[in-house]
């Protein structure tokens, strides 16, 4: 028996795994370009969030029909990993259906379960494809998805269909071979897998033994190669959520949604301003930062690492955008686009670092203006609908707020009415031009 297939298998496995690991390292480096933010508090609440929101997909079920279809795809994906494990063992050691002898009846149950889930997953992918391309669901056909994002989405679904086809080709042909005692698995009979014991003979029953062997191997190799291709495709795709949903929900904000962070750099300055004992002419403390902190965010490096992790996690489902009051009323703002832009810019910065031996060379571009315009930022009502909707706890709102902070505190570029409002607060303690001394007049008005 030739060990050539085993060597080929190992080479593909190492190359696929290695390339993925390399790209994953790049992603982690890019995420670490973000500012520090402490999300190590309250681990029990964080694990719970991850278990419910990522593992249990709690927030998906706000829309039950897609949630059930998505859940079918997800469980099929997770459970199929057991079969993949067997493929890895068989591939490396030249065995065939390694688990079958030791697991016996449970093996039949397991593979049958995988087959049933695969049928559900196939149905889900076909429905998802039709929803996107035939029904033209509005949130899946918006402007920001034209071009690559649309292709990306369809490619993922098509790859999933191919994967399922490989599973059934493999099991179906093997079933027929086993029926005539020619399977690589010793003996003669039926595997008894729920779907392929019927599907196999029906589809492949008339084929010659040689063709069956070729098809069986094609299905087997196809499955493995598709998995490797899919794994490496993730890096280039919106589909990273299958991995990042877990850390993303773990590190998500646990505070009430209405609580926005207080900038510590500002607190220090304000305290100094309000301290009657502070000496305005004092030399800065020797340990003071050489460069004063930048207020707000104009580029991805100004955002914190959780916001950057958010960007990689986003799978562009658009629930945020479809729930956004500004977007619903025709404004330019789309919370999904905020996340897509953040990732696109972050990847551009990453490529710049790769090309310049590990250092970022300013390219005259920034997230603000080149990707996200002030018009989008100013349309936000901070209502948190996008945050509430996101099935993996991404917060587009926190990015919008940080960019507004940059516009206002670094560039004084607020809309004129907002500048008036802020001047009023400064001068008379109310957003309108009323005298603070008149605050209690209502008491005596009829």
């Amino acid at each position: 028996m030739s060990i050539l297939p085993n060597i080929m298998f190992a080479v593909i496995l190492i190359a696929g795994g290695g390339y993925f690991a390399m790209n994953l390292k790049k992603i982690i480096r890019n995420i670490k370009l973000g500012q520090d933010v402490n999300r190590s508090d309250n681990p029990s609440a964080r694990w719970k969030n991850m278990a419910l929101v990522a593992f249990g997909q709690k927030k998906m079920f706000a829309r039950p029909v897609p949630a059930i279809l998505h859940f079918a795809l997800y469980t099929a994906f997770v459970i199929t990993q057991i079969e993949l494990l067997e493929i890895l063992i068989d591939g490396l050691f030249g065995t065939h259906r390694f688990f079958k002898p030791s697991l016996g009846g449970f093996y039949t149950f397991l593979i049958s379960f995988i087959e049933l889930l695969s049928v559900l997953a196939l149905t889900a992918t076909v429905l998802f494809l039709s929803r996107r391309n035939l029904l033209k669901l509005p949130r899946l056909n918006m402007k920001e998805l034209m071009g690559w994002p649309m292709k990306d989405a369809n490619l993922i679904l098509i790859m999933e269909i191919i994967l399922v086809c490989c599973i059934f080709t493999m099991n179906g042909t093997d079933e027929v071979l086993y029926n005539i005692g020619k399977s690589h698995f010793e003996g003669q009979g039926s595997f008894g897998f729920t779907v392929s014991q019927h599907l196999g003979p029906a589809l492949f029953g008339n084929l010659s033994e040689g063709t069956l062997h070729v098809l069986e191997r094609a299905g087997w190799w196809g499955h493995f190669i598709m998995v490797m291709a899919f794994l490496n495709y993730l890096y280039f795709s919106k589909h990273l959520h299958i991995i990042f949903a877990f850390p993303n929900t773990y590190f998500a904000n646990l505070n009430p949604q209405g609580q926005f962070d207080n900038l510590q750099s500002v607190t220090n300055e304000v305290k100094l301003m309000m301290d009657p004992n502070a000496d305005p002419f004092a030399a800065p403390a020797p340990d003071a930062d050489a460069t004063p902190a930048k207020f707000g965010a104009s580029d991805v490096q100004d955002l914190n690492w959780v916001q950057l992790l958010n960007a990689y996690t986003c799978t562009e489902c658009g629930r945020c955008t479809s729930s956004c009051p500004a977007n619903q009323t025709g404004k330019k703002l789309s919370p999904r686009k905020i996340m897509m832009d953040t990732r696109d810019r972050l990847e551009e910065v990453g490529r710049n670092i790769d090309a310049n031996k590990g250092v970022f060379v300013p390219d005259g571009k920034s997230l603000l203006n080149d990707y996200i315009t002030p018009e989008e930022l100013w349309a936000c009502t901070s209502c948190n609908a996008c945050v509430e909707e996101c099935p993996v706890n991404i917060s587009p709102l926190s990015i919008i707020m940080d960019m507004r902070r940059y516009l206002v505190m670094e560039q004084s570029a607020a809309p004129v009415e907002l500048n008036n409002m802020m001047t009023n607060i400064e001068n008379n303690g109310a957003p309108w031009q009323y005298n603070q001394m008149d605050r209690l007049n209502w008491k005596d008005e009829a």
Partner: protein
Amino acid sequence: MSANLTVPTMAEMMAQGKQPEVLFWVGCSGSFDDRAKKITKAFVKLLNQANVSFAVLGTEESCTGDPAKRAGNEFLFQMQAMTNIEVMNAYEIKKIVTACPHCFNTIKNEYPELGGKYEVVHHTEFLKSLLDSGRLSIEGGQFKGKRITFHDPCYLGRANNVYEAPRDLIKKLDAELVEMKRSKKNGLCCGAGGAQMFKEPEKGNKDINVERTEDALETRPEIIAAGCPFCNTMLTDGVKFKEKEGSIKVMDVAELIANAQDL
């Protein structure tokens, strides 16, 4: 309207050596906006009726800084916050009630880190607690059987998960509470949050308050209840835009209860 409102200030209370049970944070809308002042007065009438020992800061109150913060001006926000905190800490304030969800959210969630730690409740929660402890009784009065829909303010609902207190109060009026298709966690913003109240909206094909008013009108209400002075303004404008102001009123929950008692 009965004229005599008892509204002591913290300064007066302190001069008498008294500490009120709760500080009523009136807010800028409640102090200056003609429509919101009516909500303030309705709430004070209820406080007086229930013999609640409360006080206001009066001229010592200043904007919480919420609109400045949401507009991106963290400096102005923190200046306002620290000034207010200094005043309130000097009066040893423990508990605050406010009829504005924006003030509520800011003082409750964003002040503690800056040194202002208080128990903060929205006026609907406070009224509910008065009711539960028997200090205030509600009768349906003129609202018995009326169709009322409640609009969730973003900064009360999604931001702080307060959904039931205002609804419980409306139900106590023996009114027919009808829900909009988008409510509670899925409630649609009135369009005023995030400092939008103070500026023209960006270019689009519709105003958000009109979109939300349409949600409300679908429930065929006689009254649209709100729990926020900004939402109140936006929805009142929306009802006018739809030319329904003759048949549909926009009222704060506190006004509903005060009016039901003929206060």
